[in-house]
């Protein structure tokens, strides 16, 4: 079969798939283990973010190689691509982009459905845990590799009783890919 040509086609192309429940359960086991190891939810949130970051810096190339995405001209496009193509490709669901700040540097990614949290009920002892915090890290890591420094965090979490999952995405700085030419200075 010819390789998919449009970005959105990829998710429907024949890729290797893994049972969704195995994925969900594996993630659950990781979070449980982190809770056991670190005991404090704040620390677990941080660890999940770091793990996600390490995934993101690798995953970005996979994303670029397989989605046929070219350079985004502005941050708004970037957010759309993450929501519509990125999430679809790796999580199987797409997100909605909304709540743009006036200067266009901050927005929300809203997920109505989140396979990571399918069977999860947070016990009272885990209040304060952002169960899916790994996603924030992935986005942050991926964007950093294409020269965007961002801050990514959950502001709404269905596991905490909110009506959706909302990830706040804030562009801090765009680092231009400049080479240090001016060696005479």
């Amino acid at each position: 079969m010819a390789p998919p040509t449009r970005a959105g086609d990829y998710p429907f192309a024949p890729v290797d798939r893994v049972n969704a429940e195995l994925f969900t359960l594996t993630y659950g086991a990781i979070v449980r283990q982190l809770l056991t190891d670190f005991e404090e939810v704040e620390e677990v949130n941080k660890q999940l973010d770091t793990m996600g970051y390490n995934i993101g810096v690798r995953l970005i190339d996979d994303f670029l190689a397989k989605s046929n995405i070219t350079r985004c001209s502005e941050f708004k496009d970037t957010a759309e691509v993450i929501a519509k193509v990125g999430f679809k490709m790796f999580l199987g669901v797409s997100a909605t982009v909304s709540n743009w700040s006036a200067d266009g540097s901050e927005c929300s990614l809203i997920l109505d459905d989140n396979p990571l949290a399918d069977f999860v009920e947070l016990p009272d002892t885990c209040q304060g845990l952002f169960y899916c915090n790994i996603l924030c890290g992935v986005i942050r890591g991926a964007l950093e590799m294409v020269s965007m420094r961002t801050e990514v965090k959950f502001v709404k979490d269905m596991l905490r009783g909110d009506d959706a999952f909302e990830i706040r995405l804030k562009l801090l700085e765009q680092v231009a890919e400049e080479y240090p030419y001016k060696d005479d200075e």
Partner: protein
Amino acid sequence: MAATVYNLFVINKSGGLIFYKDYGTHGRLDTNDSLRLASLWHSMHAISSQLSPVGGCTGIELLEADTFDLHCFQSLTGTKIFVTTESGTPGMENMLRLIYELYTDYVLKNPFYEVEMPIRCELWDLNLAQLVRKDGKAGLTGR
């Protein structure tokens, strides 16, 4: 038709050679030469994108010499993959994209590979050899 790729290089975003391999008998380079060529190319590529009269240029994609062609692919993350081939070999653009896919699959997804470090992954070597040696048309037909 025999393989027409002479050498393959991968350089990381800071210009370090992280992978080098020669295929076939022509144009073999020793370690020093491969390092020299890689860093030379990294700089030339950078300079070319600055000198280019065309706006938004991302650097040289193809260099044609008397005895070989050099095809270069740069990902948006700054990793460069380039090959030297027999003059006039077609379909290399596509082949470089496939090599990039192999790189993301067998190098970056290997949890024991350290990002930006020299590549020592057997699966990558194996799949790469298969792709490059398949035949002259490998680049045209895709996977």
